[in-house]
């Protein structure tokens, strides 16, 4: 992982460490609009519609939706083992932070360089929230 990997400082919001394939959302996400059985986004206006967030490292702009639905969406994904492994967020909102906290997914923000210019779908990304570090290994 360390060879040819790009290392970026970030800020821990919710602790933990996980790594996996990246999926990049250029818009806000409401997790209530995901199919908990598959992790696929059902939001018909979202560019990731039909793509699965399950067991991936998710880069997203922010969350959207009321507190109750955002949390319940994440909770149902947790029950089915279809949560993202870790999240990198640009503009954290209180509902996203508190909901992600409940389902215990590592969450970071304030990556030192714009992660949208670095991370693409399919890259291998490690989010070490506890060490406040994101490692990106570009796909071949």
């Amino acid at each position, binding site marked *: 992982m360390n060879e040819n990997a790009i290392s970026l400082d970030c*800020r821990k919001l919710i602790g933990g460490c996980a790594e996996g394939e990246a999926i990049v959302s250029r818009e806000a996400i409401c997790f209530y609009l995901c199919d908990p059985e598959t992790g696929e986004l059902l939001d018909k206006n979202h560019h990731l519609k039909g793509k699965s967030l399950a067991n991936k490292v998710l880069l997203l702009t922010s969350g959207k939706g*009321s507190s*109750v639905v955002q*949390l319940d969406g994440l*909770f149902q994904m947790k029950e089915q083992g279809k949560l993202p492994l870790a999240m990198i967020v640009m503009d954290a909102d*209180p509902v996203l*932070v*508190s*909901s992600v906290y*409940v389902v215990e997914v590592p969450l970071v923000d304030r990556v030192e360089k714009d992660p949208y210019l670095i991370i693409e779908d399919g890259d291998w990304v490690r989010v070490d929230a506890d060490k406040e570090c994101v490692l990106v290994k570009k796909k071949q």
Partner: protein
Amino acid sequence: MYLTDEEERMLQGEMGEGVRKAMDMLVALGKAFDAEKMIKVSRTHVALSGQEGDTYWCELLVDGGARCLIPPTTNPNWDVATLNKHYPVSPAKLFLAARTEDVYRRIGAVMTHCCTPELAGNVPVFGEHVAFSESSATPYVNAVLGARSNRESSVSALASAVTGRTPYYGLHLDENRKGNMLVNVDVELHGAYDWGLLGWCVGMHAGNRVPVLVLRKEAYRWTRPTPEELLYFTTESSTSGAVPMFHIAGVTPEAPTLEVAFGGNATEYEITVTRRDLDEAERLVSDPAGKINLVLLGCPHYTYEQLKEAAEGVRGRKIHKDVHFWILTSFDAIELAKRSGHLEILEASGIRAVPDTCMDQPCFDGFKGMLNLTDSAKCAHYQKRRGLPFALRSLADCIDAAIEGEVR
């Protein structure tokens, strides 16, 4: 982020795993919003939504030994004893309702089951720091009462109830409470329904700004807007958008004048709302007219005044035999209506009132796909997503439609 010794001990788990989790979540929130410290809250209100994710969080805290330091009042679940007789639901849904009740009792919540705690049961005073979830209650507490709360999620408000703390950011700070958007209300407002439509229009345009309303025409019947009118405004502006703080020049406590309301801020954005905008909002939210099956009022919970208004409107008349008519209300309002004789009038006409119940619960799922009727844009908006179409009309029109069996 600075933490006191006691807060640090909470975070280190010295007061149990449940308290540790609650404080850890609040620290994550505080960091995300650059809060310099925690502050104490003296009141809390939680959602008790009956949704599984929310119940799960409460169980995590209770199983970790947590009890509420500042016992929260709760939003409604649903009155299982009454409603399950009319509309039976699956054992799994009954079990979730019972599990939710049980765990909120164990954490030490005050089981008010009411979504308008700021009117009765949990009323903060001016300047008081609190943590309220429920999107219609938060702006009421901030703007109308002058207390201070961020727009808490159900789970963050419960974390504050357990720890007695909230991160010091957002609407707890003076500078974030000042207006920066001007709303010229160029329409005569007749009652709570019109105030709700006004709220819908403001919420659509507000973004994350703090709107300041200027009432250009007659907007209330007596000396100031009623609690119901203000509540309909906060409910709908937090449904079409998210408006946790606003001012009404010359009316709300932090806006004795327009200048004070803005506090030196520039006007970033200005809108004028006319009768045409209110009509357009109604048309946008409402499903098309037709024969109706269910009339559902009380989102947010009907107050005693509204129960009385409904009783006076329907007195001596009968609801159509094919129409189910329910009013969701608070425990204190229904008791007053009973004592004052209004409940008897409602029941004689075929209208049932029930406390402790939210419209967003499984008991009304049998009305999926059928046209229903409400005076609440919030009810219409969220129930549409549940598969229940709703037409939107004022209380008086809802009563007339329920008698005819059809909304025009």
